[in-house]
């Protein structure tokens, strides 16, 4: 779609068709959408940095007693977020600890007293209309919300990142001004195996209305689009919201949630609105859309009431786990305690993944804590997971070209990357790669395409520095 159409916010609607990507078999999709609450862990490990940015500064010292929701580290720098205690007890240690990406970060370790006593919660109910945009933003930042994405950044930073309308040149050289005209709230999950957003879409949340109002106030979007999975109807609350909108500026688009990577921002915007996020380094706001998932919107709604984020909904799955489903877990719970409290392993795990099976990060240590940016925990058995090892050469079959959601030619790119021709790969669009793994998933030769792309990207970044 040419960018010029953006001046008219309601033109150029696509029909929600999306033929790229892969369709995940039904057995990978979540079977039940039930929520369980994980028991309180004996200790939590709270990394001071759970996002891309700078770590927070601790304001408590070893031996202090803390309550749930108490501020334990402040954000005294722009790119930092405050951190709150997620269980009540004693601050046992300030130490370095590994996070899920294998990076050592300073962390606070709290040992539980088992009481789960909260700080006093603010009683007054704040009406969203009485708060200005800057107050809303402050409250979002104070609650410590992080965007659950491949590159997790503080939610507040994401909201203001592309706030100023920018003038840029369209393909035919005309100047175009884009402003945010659409708020898109997605009830699709990052991956078809994940289910938090789809679960959220079934339940009535008082915070949702507030979250939407806050997002609209912050971005200036006039209309709202809910994106839902057509396999899991009905969506009563969303339908109510559509009916309640007198200006008829709210609608629901239902898509095939089993198609991956439809849940990622770039393909989603292409499918629903036909808008192409400029790649690389693009943002949905660049094409006039504020895109957040339902879980984030609801968390944002509760942050308006000054409730800090102490727990997180994650999907727990995989054949090696005794219990699967959606789990409400305190931030900082080590994955070992979480698995143990859910009944342990029912089978030998061959892979332990934080995140979904398609885009998550493999783990080897049970002490890694669940942080704010983690959407899921999977433990796959040997039968379920892909074994690494021998792979063949590319047979040029073109399956990867068929599935690539950003129209690259992954097979050819991977050959450049494997032969260290990173600049050539970059010219062919390497940096546009979303690392969704569709090409890897379908490759009949089992080539580690995503691995090669990440390696090449890293080499390019290092060469630039």
């Amino acid at each position, binding site marked *: 779609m040419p960018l010029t159409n953006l001046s008219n916010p309601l033109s150029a609607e696509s029909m929600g068709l999306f033929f790229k990507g892969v369709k995940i078999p039904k057995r990978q999709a979540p079977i039940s959408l039930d929520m369980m609450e994980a028991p309180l862990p004996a200790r939590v490990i709270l990394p001071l940095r759970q996002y891309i940015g700078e770590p927070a500064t601790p304001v408590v010292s070893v031996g202090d007693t803390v309550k749930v929701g108490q501020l334990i580290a402040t954000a005294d720098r722009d790119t930092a977020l405050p951190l709150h205690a997620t269980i009540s007890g004693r601050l046992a240690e300030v130490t370095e600890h590994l996070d899920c990406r294998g990076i050592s970060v300073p962390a606070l370790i709290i040992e539980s007293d088992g009481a789960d006593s909260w700080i006093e919660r603010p009683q007054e109910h704040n009406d969203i209309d009485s708060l200005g945009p800057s107050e809303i933003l402050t409250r979002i930042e104070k609650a410590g919300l992080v965007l659950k994405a491949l590159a997790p950044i503080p939610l507040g930073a994401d909201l203001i990142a592309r706030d100023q309308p920018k003038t840029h040149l369209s393909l035919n050289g005309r100047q175009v001004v884009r402003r945010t005209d659409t708020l898109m709230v997605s009830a699709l999950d990052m991956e078809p195996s994940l289910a938090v957003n789809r679960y959220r879409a079934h339940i009535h949340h008082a915070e949702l209305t507030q979250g939407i109002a806050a997002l609209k106030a912050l971005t200036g979007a006039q209309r709202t689009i809910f994106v839902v999975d057509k396999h899991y109807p009905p969506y009563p609350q969303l339908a109510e919201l559509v009916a309640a909108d007198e200006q008829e500026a709210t609608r629901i688009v239902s898509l095939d949630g089993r198609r991956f990577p439809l849940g990622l921002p770039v393909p989603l915007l292409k499918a629903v609105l036909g808008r192409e996020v400029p790649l690389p380094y693009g943002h949905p706001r660049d094409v006039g859309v504020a895109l957040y998932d339902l879980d984030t919107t609801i968390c944002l709604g509760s942050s308006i009431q000054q409730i800090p984020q102490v727990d997180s909904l994650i999907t727990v799955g995989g054949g090696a786990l005794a219990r699967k489903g959606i789990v409400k877990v305190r931030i900082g719970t080590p994955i070992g305690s979480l698995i143990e409290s859910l009944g342990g392993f029912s089978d030998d795990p061959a892979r332990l993944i934080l995140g979904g099976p398609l885009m998550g990060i493999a783990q080897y240590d049970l002490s890694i804590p669940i942080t704010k940016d983690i959407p899921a925990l999977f433990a796959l058995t040997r039968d379920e997971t892909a074994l690494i090892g021998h792979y063949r050469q590319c047979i040029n079959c073109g399956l990867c070209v068929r599935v690539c959601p950003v129209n690259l030619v992954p097979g050819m790119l991977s050959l450049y990357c494997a032969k260290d021709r990173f600049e050539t790969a970059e010219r062919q669009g390497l940096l546009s790669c979303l690392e969704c793994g569709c090409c890897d998933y379908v490759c009949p030769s089992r080539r580690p395409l*995503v691995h090669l792309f990440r390696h090449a990207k890293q080499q390019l970044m290092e060469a630039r520095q």
Partner: protein
Amino acid sequence: MTHVKAQGSNEKTSDSESCGFPMELPNVIVSMSPHIRGETTVARMMLTIIIGLVPAALAGVYLFGIRALVVIALSVVTALGVESAIEALTHQRPTSSDLHAVLTGLLLALILPPSVPWWIPVIGAAVAIILGKMVFGGLGNYPFNPVLVAWVVLKLSWAERMGLFFAPHTTSQALTPLMAVKEDPALFYSYELLSLFLGDKAGPIGTVCGLAVLTGGLFVLFKGMIRWHIPVAFLLGVGLFSGILRVINPDIYPSVAFQLMGGGVLLGAFFLAPEPVTSPVTPWGMLLFGFLAGLTTMVIRMWGADPDGTFYAILIMNAATPLCNYLKPRPYGRGHRA
């Protein structure tokens, strides 16, 4: 299996060190995402294409009898044997389980005349594997379709044996429809289109029954192992060219349907041109490749020495595959200026 019992280890939780857990994590694999894979493997891909060729092979055996079966069997067995032998001699990992050698042997047999002596498929299959595939480094590396390389070698070495065809159900020599029309355009009117489609004509083992080839081709297409671009563009290229000629002078140029069904066009469009290694991967590249292969086929038929130019045309176009791949799709979000 080392099951972890959550109950038995609860007491230890409180006194363990910061990183120590009572639970033992068995050996886990740590690698880049994705952690799950689809079901398509090279072997499955090849098997699907082989299944797609079964109708054509059965039709060939029905029409030309046990001779055709012997040719197919010799070709397949030689291809498998030669590949295994080379891999054993050069200490390579055996790849016969990926079924590519079987497919190569089968396809080669299907484009040979049923009249050939036993050593033709044997030499052909050996040439396909050695000269067509293994010298370049095996599956994935060869620039030309090995089946067609072998066919050309046989054709150039034993031209008269490769041009000797049988009428169906007999061992009496007959001309293929394309050979007949090349000698005398008026003979076109002696052919009935439906019987041409069903296989009542002389020709290579696997190409005579258009119905069987089409059935198998559509099967492979719907299984997703080939894409529609190359077959459609190929048929379009042949159809368009012959249609224009037909309009210009119906007396000397046969009809479009005759050109599509008279020779190896259907087998070429569905099985030889879309061969994964030697065909383009980008959508526009595939369309261009298929269309040009179709046009070349017709050029050879009209003005070349070979009555059925399909196999030569595909072989020529194989050389243009890297060029066709330059027609890349536009990556999303490109062309925007921030």
